[in-house]
């Protein structure tokens, strides 16, 4: 870790004013940033500690829906009675991630801003366009078991590592930000970006912009949902593939469907047009199989991660079956429902 100067922000305005300066990072839970600073992957000149800001509330929105404060901790969010009752998909996804200690420290705002687990991004002895633009991508033709099969570019094949974000994507959350240019709302699908020619940028935040909250819409999925995570050990490991499903059934047909994939792309992966194709269909294997193909259309393996394509296909179908049956995946019982 390279020394830096430290500011404790007393207000959001103070934070964003400081945050727009070059090489300045906001510090919240620190579970990802301090890790990266120790690796010297992140080398901020200045940290703005935002932990004192009053952004840790979880409250019902006037027009329905729920506002998750950016500084509310992941564990407090997952175990919040309203989240447990109305947004069990989100609770499940949070509890599928990291460890209890990390969930106690990590914030919601930090979670959506966490960076990839790509081996090369983490190892400053190797090339990485995300860490050091123009240095090349070590993972292409390298060790890439955990890398992307969708939406990758010839510059970067990293994946987004969050579990929480996969549920937020499926739930059509909105990210509230404040910054030098004022406040704005970013639909979750537009928050993270694909690597393209500029993999160093994970999301669409502008300099100085601070995430203040994540809003969940009123639409509740409390019966037909699941978060299915597949990984290399049964807990405390990042997803190889994960699937968040939020579904509604009416009269034996699918009336609403959102499916997001984790572990496969630079952002939570959704295809709303494929979801729409399933509306009105019976929740059967044929429909699920078609949907899996549509969601994975264009998937490309990188060698070591070729298996993710068939794995994701099977996982999508299984998760849809879990959701349709109203038997969401337990994060405690490791038998897959």
């Amino acid at each position: 870790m390279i020394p830096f100067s430290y500011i404790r922000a007393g207000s959001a305005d103070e934070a964003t004013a400081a945050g727009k300066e070059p090489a300045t990072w906001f510090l919240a839970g620190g579970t990802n940033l301090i890790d990266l600073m120790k690796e010297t992957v992140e080398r901020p000149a200045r940290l703005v500690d935002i932990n004192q800001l009053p952004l840790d509330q979880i409250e019902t929105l006037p027009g329905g829906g729920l506002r998750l404060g950016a500084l509310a901790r992941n564990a407090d969010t997952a175990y919040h009675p309203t989240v447990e009752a109305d947004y069990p998909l989100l609770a499940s996804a949070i509890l599928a991630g990291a460890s209890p200690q990390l969930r106690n420290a990590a914030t919601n705002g930090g979670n959506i801003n966490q960076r990839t687990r790509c081996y090369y991004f983490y190892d400053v002895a190797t090339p990485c366009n995300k860490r050091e633009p123009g240095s090349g991508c070590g993972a292409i033709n390298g060790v890439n078991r955990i890398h992307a099969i969708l939406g990758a570019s010839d510059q970067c094949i990293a994946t987004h590592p969050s579990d929480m974000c996969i549920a937020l994507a499926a739930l059509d959350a909105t990210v509230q930000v404040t910054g030098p240019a004022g406040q704005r709302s970013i639909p979750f699908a537009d928050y993270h970006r694909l690597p393209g020619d500029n993999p160093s940028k994970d999301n669409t935040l502008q300099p100085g912009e601070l995430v203040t909250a994540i809003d969940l819409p009123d639409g509740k999925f409390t019966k037909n949902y699941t978060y299915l995570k597949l990984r290399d050990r049964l807990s405390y490991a990042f997803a190889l593939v994960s699937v968040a499903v939020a579904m509604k059934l009416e009269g034996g047909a699918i009336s609403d469907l959102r499916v997001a994939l984790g572990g496969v792309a630079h952002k939570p992966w959704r295809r709303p047009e494929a979801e729409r194709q399933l509306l009105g269909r019976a929740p059967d294997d044929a429909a699920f199989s078609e949907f899996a193909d549509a969601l994975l259309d264009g998937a490309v393996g990188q060698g070591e991660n070729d298996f993710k394509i068939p794995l994701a296909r099977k996982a999508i179908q299984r998760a849809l079956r879990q959701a349709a049956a109203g038997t969401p995946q337990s994060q405690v019982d490791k038998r897959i429902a």
Partner: protein
Amino acid sequence: MPPQATLQPAAPAFDVKVDFSLTINGRKHSFSVEPWVTLLDLLRERLDLTGSKKGCDHGQCGACTVLVDGKRINSCLKLAVTLDGSEITTIEGLADGDRLHPLQQAFVEHDAFQCGYCTPGQICSAQGLINEGRARTAAEIRELMSGNLCRCGAYTNIVDAVEEVVRQGALHKEAAE
């Protein structure tokens, strides 16, 4: 062949010190230290509280687990300055004099460790788990103790030890009600 890293860091600020205070195991401490000092390094290198262990320094093993205001966290990933005013409990703060804390006693009796290096983190984590009140069954304990690696492989004994104390706690609670 990997190209050499050419990224140049911004000019480092070496002479920064920040004042803050922490209550550690019931005793208040005032500090003036650099902001890049983690809670774990503060405990181990500046207070000689070496019970909290460094097993990875990156939040990947749980050996450094301590309780901050009753909640378990990885102290290696926490800059100490950000905890101003918090109450910290480390493994050194659990026993009552010579009398071991029930978790410590259960760990000894169940042989819930071998080399002992992950043990303080396991015990602090187990106390955090009990505070959270989310684990009742062995399966729940296994999942919610998975943030603490044990390379000696004492897991089943750890679960037995924690389960015993969780059950005792439930009994005490019942008796009190």
